[in-house]
């Protein structure tokens, strides 16, 4: 069983966390901190296994991690998982993330999963992860199958218009202007005056 999947950057900032056992939020953060503390002080040329000890679950559990550029991918697993298998899985997931999140950057080497990709698309990465690991157990390892399923679901989302439909995207430029105070309630009568430009990009 996989007990937790943690992805954080070189400064310990969480980029994606997935616990398959319940921990309260503050406990989760503590686990992330401690894991980061353990993992970050290790050289890159040492082995990728770490006895987690009291961190999660006890002595049966160990941490298996990979370090790519600015990101750490950490799996906390028990003895029923193959250590080398999990290492392969982490590599696989990195690959999916780069393939599925940014189809246009397929040429990117998977070793260079960009941290920004993860930050802005945490939800999408979650959806990919869900196709690989479910409830702490490895669901699918066939690359083509996973990519196909993720693609189909994304297409379904697109056909529904997606979460951020056109108008919202249009004004994101406005939002990024760092206005001191955005008026929350717009007077309907003044609609043409107050909203600067509604035309799409």
């Amino acid at each position: 069983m996989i007990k937790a999947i943690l992805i954080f950057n070189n400064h310990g900032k969480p980029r994606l966390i997935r616990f398959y056992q319940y921990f309260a939020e503050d406990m989760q953060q503590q686990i992330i901190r401690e894991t980061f503390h353990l993992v970050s002080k290790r050289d890159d040329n040492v082995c990728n296994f770490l006895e987690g000890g009291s961190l999660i679950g006890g002595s049966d559990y160990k941490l298996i991690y990979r370090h790519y550029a600015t990101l750490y991918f950490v799996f906390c697993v028990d003895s029923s998982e193959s250590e080398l298998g999990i290492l392969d899985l982490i590599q696989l997931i990195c690959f999916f993330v780069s393939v599925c999140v940014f189809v246009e950057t397929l040429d990117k080497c998977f070793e260079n999963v960009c941290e920004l990709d993860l930050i802005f698309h945490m939800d999408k990465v979650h959806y990919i992860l869900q196709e690989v690991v479910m409830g702490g157990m490895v669901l699918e390892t066939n690359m083509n199958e996973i990519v196909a399923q993720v693609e189909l679901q994304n297409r379904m989302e697109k056909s529904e218009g997606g979460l951020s439909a056109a108008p919202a995207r249009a004004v994101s430029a406005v939002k990024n202007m760092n206005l001191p105070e955005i008026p929350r309630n717009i007077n309907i009568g003044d609609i043409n005056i107050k909203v600067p430009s509604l035309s799409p990009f």
Partner: protein
Amino acid sequence: MALKIVKGSIDRMFDKNLQDLVRGIRNHKEDEAKYISTCIDEIKQELKQDNIAVKANAVCKLTYLQMLGYDVSWAAFNIVEVMSSSKFTYKRIGYLAASQCFHEGTDVIMLTTNQIRKDLSSPHQYDTGVALTGLSCFVTPDLARDLANDIMTLMSHTKPYIRKKAVLIMYKVFLKYPESLRPAFPRLKEKLEDPDPGVQSAAVNVICELARRNPKNYLSLAPLFFKLMTSSTNNWVLIKIIKLFGALTPLEPRLGKKMIEPLTNLIHSTSAMSLLYECVNTVIAVLISLSSGMPNHSASIQLCVQKLRILIEDSDQNLKYLGLLAMSKILKTHPKSVQSHKDLILQCLDDKDESIRLRALDLLYGMVSKKNLMEIVKKLMLHVDKAEGTTYRDELLTKIIDICSQSNYQYITNFEWYISILVELTRLEGTRHGHLIASQMLDVAIRVKAIRGFAVAQMATLLDNAHLLTGNTQHNGICEVLYAAAWICGEFSEHLEDPMQTLEAMLRPKVATLPGHIQAVYVQNAAKLFATVLRKHEGETDSHAVQETSQLLIDRLPLFVQSANLEVQERASCILQLVKYIQKLQQKKVEVAEEVTALFAGELNPVAPKAQKKVPVPEGLDLDAWINKPPSESESEDEKPKAVFAKEEPKHSRSRHTEVDEKELAKRREARKQEQANNPFYIKASPSSQKVYDAPGVEHIPVVQIDLSVPLKVPGMPMSDQYLKLEEERRQKEKAERKKKEKKKKREKRGKERKADSGPESEEDITPAHQVDIVTEEMPENALPSDDDDKDPNDPHKALDIDLDKPLADSEKLPVRTHRPEVLKSPAEDRVNESIPQETKKRSSKEKKEKKKGKEKDRKRSKEEKKKKKHKEVEEELLESHPEEAVQSEETKEAATPPTSAEEETTPLSAAAADMSSAAAPESEPDEPKDAEPEDTKSSKHKKKKQKKEKEEKEKKKKKRHHHHHHHHHHHSDAGGDDSVQNGTVEEEEPLPPMSNYSLLAENSYIKMMKEDADQVYDIQGNHQDESKVVVSVIFENKSDSFLKSMEFNVLDSLNSKLQRPEGAGAHDSLTVPFQLPPGISNEARFVFSVQSIVMPQKLKGTLTFIVKSDESSTHEKLDFKLHFTCTSYLITTPCYSDAYAKLLESGDLKGSSLRLERIKMPFHHLLARICFHHHFSVVERIDSCASMYSRSIQGHHVCLLVKTSDQTVSIDAKCDEPSLLGNVLDEIKQTFSKC
């Protein structure tokens, strides 16, 4: 309206989406928390809007914030809303959020049952997939129970995508709801051979996970797995299966033999390191499990070790690590094959990777022998010196101690060396294992008697140089060793060369900076040293030294008397006074040494850590039994403190304790021994272990002569090396001697075969440097051996230890989805299952019924379609006899039709809400007959109250349901597919007045009898053709100040009704009430009556006799009473379907009657509740001011009521197949309402 929509979408443009939030957080690095709190406020605003897209966006952002550690549980309900959206985009967001932050404690989870069920059966595979994924993260026991059957159905879904998810989630379901394992297992097994590799892999995954915890139940699957192993090409599956075999082989050695060949083949053929590694691992497991008689054994071991060596020598650190890990497994059973690779492992100790070093350390643990212990420890000590970073150094420290102390110091040949190692370890700065070192010092000094002299000398040096250690005074720091040092010096002070000097060292002012518990030991042991000094100098004419010592103590102890630590203070002031007194005596030239020494006389023996736990409980002693009477509930709180401060009792018990004289004790001991001798299961203490402490004394053990060539006085100098050299020299010498001897022998016995193991290098030849006697730890004299000390009773996997090969019993069906959690059943069916068990209490019988329900489900559906039509018929049927009411009822019919049809298509949330309220009060339906178990007497009173409350809730719920239905219709008409939900709009209703069904039976100055309106009725018609049993609960309350006892209850039987008496009792004998009543206490007793005819009410005369016992006297008293059996009490609350109800009325077997009640001021629902409560009816249907009700007698008479109200007038039309019963029931109803 249109304007509103436009406004909504414009508002939305300024809502941040996830990307904006992330960007914002990145732009506000310096005041992140503040920024996020404004974002959370915005999110709260967004969640208040009706637009589901806005909500979904907000929930998506919350998921991100949750990752950053913000508690978002407050939005749980909004997450459920988003989950129940019909759009996949939103649903997915909802489920993601739920899977991140829902857990068993989340209360809204029970709202989701129906939604999840709906999604599971959705035609879109991704809706189902998303629901399964989400559920896998937050499944609770309730969800597991309710959805197990749905998920099981999905295991045979046409789409492999769903199948594999359903299979995988079953593991979670099993964990939460172990009852589902057996019914689901056959299908799970089927999936092992699923055509889709993904599904197959999932099934293997689940079974492996199950088998890992309880392997013996899965042995029968071995052939199937064996087939899979030889046919599968998927490495993931292979790894899982091979791991599974690793778990199975210890249980079945024959399996292991079969495994070796294919595994060896795989090892040779595979190119995947992960697979190779797992194969090696399993081969090791197989070899461990096999007895060593296998001929080709060593070949396999050699293969494994050889492959592992390749791994360890690989440049890939991961392989190195795993190689060492697997090596340590071989080590346990085949240490010889590993020991030959000692060089490699010692090399790994120098690796730059800490994990690898730790693994190598683990291996060392198993590789030590008497021969190489010193050498290995020396190497480790070097590492300790080099190690940077305290964690690894501490690890080394514990390992050194572990290695040396393992199996009772088995490998230590020279304890002086070990003590020196421990002393050297104290030089470690900043270690957290001071305590560990200290406990080792104590342990060795106590248990190895021969070493005490040496240990004391070393400890004295430590104390003298304590300033070197006190740099770190934090808890568990190295200063802890001073605790041990002080104690050893004090306890074994007879070995001290110069106790005076040590005493001086222990009383230095610097000591006051040590932690309190260490100071306390210092003070106490200073006193011991003082006693030693006294004894040493007693009899000397010059008592100067003694006086000096007393003066030293008197001078220094006041420092400790001022200590803030209570323990130190107490001990110091005690000893200070003692010394002052002794000083006085000394001045009078009185010899006190002997008496002072007597204070500390006696040997302390080591006690095993588990000794206390192992003391067997003597026969006849129940540790859980109350010693005094348990405090009764009626006792008021403020009485308690009195008892607490009562000083009499403890004194009393103590004095009684001492009364048990020696003789008595001896007698008891004798009896116990006798008993043990007769008990075949009692394991007697082996004579050998006894010998250890029964040995005549310390004298016969040769005390080690300290070799003064070893510099003792230099603290902290590494001197263990000296021992190593000495040891080598000694061994050389011994070897030489032995060779000489052997030569001699050889010369003498030439021609005789030389023993194979008599080589000079073998273990046995290494004799310990000193003859040591390692005292074993003491155990209680009749300790029971037990190995289950370490098992975790809370392991969830324990519940899954289920035999899977037994054929499925009928009762083991998964709960099938039902229309409502509490299903109303038609009376016809109900007669078959005479009593409806409470769902939570008797699940097994419920499951039996589920089957029936399942079959009926289809029938029901078609029935429900007709329901609407039928309903009309019901009313018309009832109305026929009262045409004057028809007009009024016609109006209600209009309102009545929508709700009935709406029942079928409730909105997800209203259904969920109904679900929740029923889940919160599973026993709330009045339709359930109350639990008739007589042993529930204590709780029954409480239960009654609960039921009352629940009844109120139920009424509310009914209203609520109606309310929702109306809303739902509204939505359907104008909102189309929009799934926005209504929440929190429940009308406040005035609560029902409290109702009690206890009536006064009889009362006098001593006692009050309350009879419960006999609703504890059950029917055993099956056994007795025309006889029914009625249980009457009577509460007896003692009103007097005296003790009431020997209560006897008797009733004069009539022809129709008889009190059930125990077999053998005469027809007029009385029944003893099974309790006594202290003053002011009440208790409840139940009496069973057999009744023949139930159509008429009955009255029985009875008497209660009892003895009133007061301080002075006891008197016989009696109380007459009349037991009134109403016809109502023969009715059982029985649920009924409206269609069955209609049929019943149609049948024409029933005869009608009616009743009119005037000036009833209570609201209609109160009226119904009263009828339900007091007369055991259930509401079949209620439409505004008109309701149909049903009940059934214990002999199967149907009673139907139609209750209508208008303007304080209530008319009840009733039908029953027994007119006299009906008449009496109606009279009783009338009486009930005339009372209020």
